[in-house]
């Protein structure tokens, strides 16, 4: 089955080759990182998590969003999602794979990764995160693989697959909740110490995931002329907008709590992110861009006409995707460390090796997603 994911025209082959080269470059720098230590990244004593964990956090959201396809299709028998669900599952597989790689890249001692299993610590959220993510990728892969296999052969879906689908629903909510708990339970990090961290995560996930999927399906359509049901696209875009609206709403709640209560610790990070603090304002343009793009995206897509125009829909999805990526990726994670627990502002600058490794991981993710998407399309075309 998998070999069908590699069959395509020359453009597709060049695309895969390009991704492989980017991945190879990433691997080279990862080897260097293994050799020299995480010092080659922009992380420091004060900002001890950086771009890797930012991407990780964002991608968990993308992965979790598959549930927005699974619920309507399996729970509410929304048949229009018939052909789309599997793409959501593949996206989840690719996203979690990238999550895992980002975690591996971020680890100081990756060769000890198995310690998490050898010394299981139920009190640690990270232990649970590792478990739920592994479980999630396994479930989505197994479900996707088996449904496609049965689509291909006509043979009945094995009986044990259906229950897995239903397990995957709470599980998807679980992965993002647990990931939110990584942050939300830490004393002394005020940006993160908020009860709506998990809801915020989910809301932004349900915006960014469908946005990503819409963009991918659009690219698929343009390059392979494989189309899914237009109704599915329209439903997907509605899910995305609702997610984004709730996301923006939650975000403004944070502003209210911080600034109305006027507690300095709560305010400072938001100040830093949106206005700069103590003369440091490196993230300000990014964060403002994110806010502006997000709001434009939502307003645009509130109009049905805009949503129904393919180009504009994709533009909106792109705006929302970029907005959530900046917000949940960089701003959330790096912002959480500013000011430091000692009240100092240390800024973070990504380094070239760090960027290369991250791009490499994205390339591996895109490679996987491309191959799985292509496999699905090729198989569906051959039936």
């Amino acid at each position, binding site marked *: 089955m998998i070999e069908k994911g590699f069959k395509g025209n020359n453009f597709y082959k060049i695309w895969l080759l390009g991704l492989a080269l980017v991945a190879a470059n990433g691997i080279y720098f990862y080897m260097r990182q293994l050799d020299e*230590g995480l010092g080659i990244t922009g*992380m420091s004593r004060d900002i001890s998590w950086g771009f890797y964990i930012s991407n990780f956090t964002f991608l968990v959201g993308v992965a979790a969003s598959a549930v927005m396809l699974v619920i309507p299709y399996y729970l509410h028998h929304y048949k229009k999602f018939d052909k789309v669900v599997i793409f959501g599952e593949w996206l989840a597989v690719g996203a979690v794979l990238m999550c895992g790689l980002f975690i591996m890249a971020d680890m100081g001692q990756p060769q000890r990764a198995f310690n998490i299993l050898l010394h299981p610590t139920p009190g640690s959220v990270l232990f649970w995160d590792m478990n739920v993510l592994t479980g999630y990728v396994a479930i989505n892969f197994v479900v996707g693989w088996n449904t496609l296999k049965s689509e291909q052969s006509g043979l009945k879906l094995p009986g044990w697959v259906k229950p897995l689908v239903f397990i995957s629903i709470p599980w998807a909510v679980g992965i993002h909740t647990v990931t939110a708990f990584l942050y939300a339970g830490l004393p002394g990090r005020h940006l993160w110490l908020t009860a709506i961290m998990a809801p915020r995560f989910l809301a932004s996930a349900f915006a960014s995931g469908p946005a990503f999927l819409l963009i991918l399906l659009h690219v698929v359509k343009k390059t392979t002329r494989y189309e899914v049901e237009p109704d599915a696209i329209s439903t997907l875009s509605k899910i995305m907008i609702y997610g984004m609206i709730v996301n923006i709403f939650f975000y403004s709640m944070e502003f209210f709590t911080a600034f109305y209560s006027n507690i300095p610790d709560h305010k400072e990070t938001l100040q830093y992110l949106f206005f700069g603090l103590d003369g440091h304002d490196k993230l300000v343009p990014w964060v403002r861009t994110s806010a502006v793009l997000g709001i434009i995206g939502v307003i645009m897509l509130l109009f049905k006409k805009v949503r129904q125009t393919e180009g504009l829909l994709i533009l909106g999805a792109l705006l929302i995707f970029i907005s959530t990526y900046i917000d949940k990726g960089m701003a959330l994670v790096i912002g959480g460390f500013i000011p430091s627990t000692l009240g100092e502002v240390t800024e973070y600058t990504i380094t070239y090796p760090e960027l290369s490794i991250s791009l490499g991981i994205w390339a591996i993710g895109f490679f996987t997603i491309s191959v799985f998407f292509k496999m699905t399309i090729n198989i569906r075309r051959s039936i």
Partner: protein
Amino acid sequence: MKLNNEVNRKEFLKLSGVAALLGFGGPLAFKIYASGEFDAAESNSKVRYGMAVDTRKCKEGCTDCASACHLKHNVPDHKSKKNEIKWIWKEPAKHLFQDRDYNIEAEFSADMPFLTLCNHCKNPSCVRVCPTQATWKRKDDGIVMMDYHRCIGCRFCMAACPYGSRSFNYAEPRKGIAKLNPDFPTRTRGVVEKCNFCEEIIGTGKNPYCVQSCKEGALTFGNLNDPDSEIRKLLKNNPSIKRKAGLGTEPSVFYLV
């Protein structure tokens, strides 16, 4: 007390051999072997170590305690703020006690350098988050320990520590050590480290190196659970503050003001 290996070794050999023969008895054989082979008994005592820093005695410009500690523990100096490793160091008061109004409260000024180190909290958040128990709170003496053999370098503890007490080996530690102390190991790249209250020597009744090295007697180390200990007496008779008490971590380092 179990006199172990020599006596039982032959027995174990046989057992494992038989288990090997049975093929599938693997887990059982592992159990028989893994536990108890090298066991030795040790006594337990209810101790909670803590430290009192007398800010009034601490001399400005003096870094004897930090030098002694860093030398003894092979703490590298990478000469870079990004990669720096610190077990004990000085920090302006306003960084340690951010919620004070320095214009009105007069015990010390905002920029007065204060000593800081791991608080060995009673309720440490770093320990809670560690996925491998590479950092944990030792029951015997309340020291928040680091197991450098086990740490995977995820730096969750650094995010969780509200005091900035932890450092990560971003660079090869041995490259930053001017003079090695052969009696204490260095660390390896990619693990987190921090003050260990000199657990390697305090068992024999000695004071930590920082305490030993302080000529002013500004540092007092002792058992917080013992009402008769020197540190308890100091705390009883002097006003003291703790860092970020509101977070509920209950630090074991007290500042006498």
